[in-house]
């Protein structure tokens, strides 16, 4: 009458050792010493912590942070309010209102149509970057700045003024700072 042993599936099952403890084990001292050796060896281990304010962990090159509305080399807004970004947005975070460029505004807007109002709700945004991919005019980019915390819900709706990059012609210093060059 053989004892039925369950078939092992992985051959990794380990028999639990239920032998009564030997004298050395019952003294615990040897095991305590072994444990203390393990904790002591951690003195020489490398600490994974980074001293944050002094040192910052570099961002990944594909990091997607707050949006930026770009300008061209002459400082004109690139956005033409086509609405493709809003259409691509899976979270429906982008709204805009288009307007027609008037005579004499050629130095402000690159295309004949421009965004009079452009808002992104950062509470809705999932930072997927689809708007960036959808844009035919290279107007919207995701920067390396993480979205900051705030106290009110309204403050998370970023207006066009919040999103536009500084003008490279008139606000040279701010532009360089925004590009991370200064």
């Amino acid at each position, binding site marked *: 009458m053989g004892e039925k042993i369950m078939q092992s599936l992985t051959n990794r099952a380990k028999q639990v050792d239920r032998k009564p403890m030997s004298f050395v084990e019952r003294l615990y001292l040897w095991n305590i010493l072994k444990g203390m050796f393990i*904790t002591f060896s951690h003195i020489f281990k490398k*600490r994974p912590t980074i001293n944050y304010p002094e040192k910052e962990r570099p961002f990944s090159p594909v990091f997607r942070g707050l949006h930026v509305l770009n300008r061209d080399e002459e400082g004109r807004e690139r956005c033409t309010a086509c609405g493709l970004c809003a259409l691509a947005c899976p979270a429906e975070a982008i709204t805009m209102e288009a307007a027609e460029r008037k005579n004499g505004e050629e130095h402000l807007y690159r295309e004949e149509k421009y965004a009079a109002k452009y808002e992104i709700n950062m509470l809705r945004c999932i930072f997927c970057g689809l708007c960036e991919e959808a844009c035919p005019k290279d107007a919207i980019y995701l920067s390396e700045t993480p979205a900051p915390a705030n106290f009110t819900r309204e403050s998370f709706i970023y207006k066009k003024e919040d999103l536009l990059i500084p003008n490279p012609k008139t606000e040279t210093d701010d532009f360089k700072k925004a590009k991370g060059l200064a």
Partner: protein
Amino acid sequence: MSIDWILVLEKFLLIAVVVTASLVIAMYETWGERKIAAILQDRRGPNRAGPMGLFQPLADGLKLFMKEEIIPNSSNKFLFILGPCLAMMAAMMTSAVIPFGGTIEVFGRTVALQIADVNIGVLYIFAVVSLGVYGIMIGGWASNNKFSLMAALRAASQAISYELAMGLSLIALLFMSGSLSMREIVTQQMAGGWGGLLGWNVIYQPLGFLIFLVAAFAECNRTPFDLPEAENELNFGYHQEYSSMKLGFYLFAEYINMFISSVVMATLFFGGYDMPFFDEAAHADWGNWLALIGIVALMAKVVFFIFLFMWVRWTIPRFRYDQLMNLGWKKMVPLALANMLITGAVVLWLNS
């Protein structure tokens, strides 16, 4: 009868120095504990307040002072205040009989670096250490809180159980020294070979030292015997209702106890202020420098023991209560008794 006022002044100065030193050492023990805990766990530990976080204990102390002092309505107010006072006092009193070094020459006077060289030093330490339980008991009882009371009961029974093993392990040592005076015990150890190293009691009493060490851990309520303040079982232990500096006193008393028991272990088993591989008697003309070397040697040993306390704390998990009592009564006491009998027999055999 005339009073030697200079002697009184000298002793007062010594007491002030020793008390201040124990307080400062206890302060930096809290820093060391956090730093060592961090290092053993691959963390960084306090490093914001001052270089390497060295001002952290000052910030902690300030925080404790500024906190609201709460005395629960249902507590016994007198005992509630008496508890931490007693704990602190008992912790500080032990240092009175410990020789912190040899003798120094100041203004033509020979000053022994010991507050009181009483001939019952070891006995005195035991008496005062037992008093420390009252601080915890009274605090836990006066809080009028069942968790505090339970923790205080645990602390009392634990301290009483382990004091027995501690005393028995020391009796074996006293058989050899034949004296209860701490300075006498140190002097005997210093006479050994290799500049005193071969005279250290730990060589002749390894088992006694081990029992003493474990019992000291239990007496200080340190892990793995920190049942009186087991957070996950008793919220916070016997000082649950305490706040502000009264809580600070309890925590401080624990660290001072740690310091004092390290000093006692170093003195009784590791030659006290004896520098190994250095013959103090041959350099008697060095005067005050010799005393300084002694203090440095003692402090080095103390620092090692304090590190051991913290090292063990972050290695071994807490005992269960029945395991604690089993270890105390069924292992330590018989072992200490056997050690005592064997030592007694050997001493008798050698002397006959």
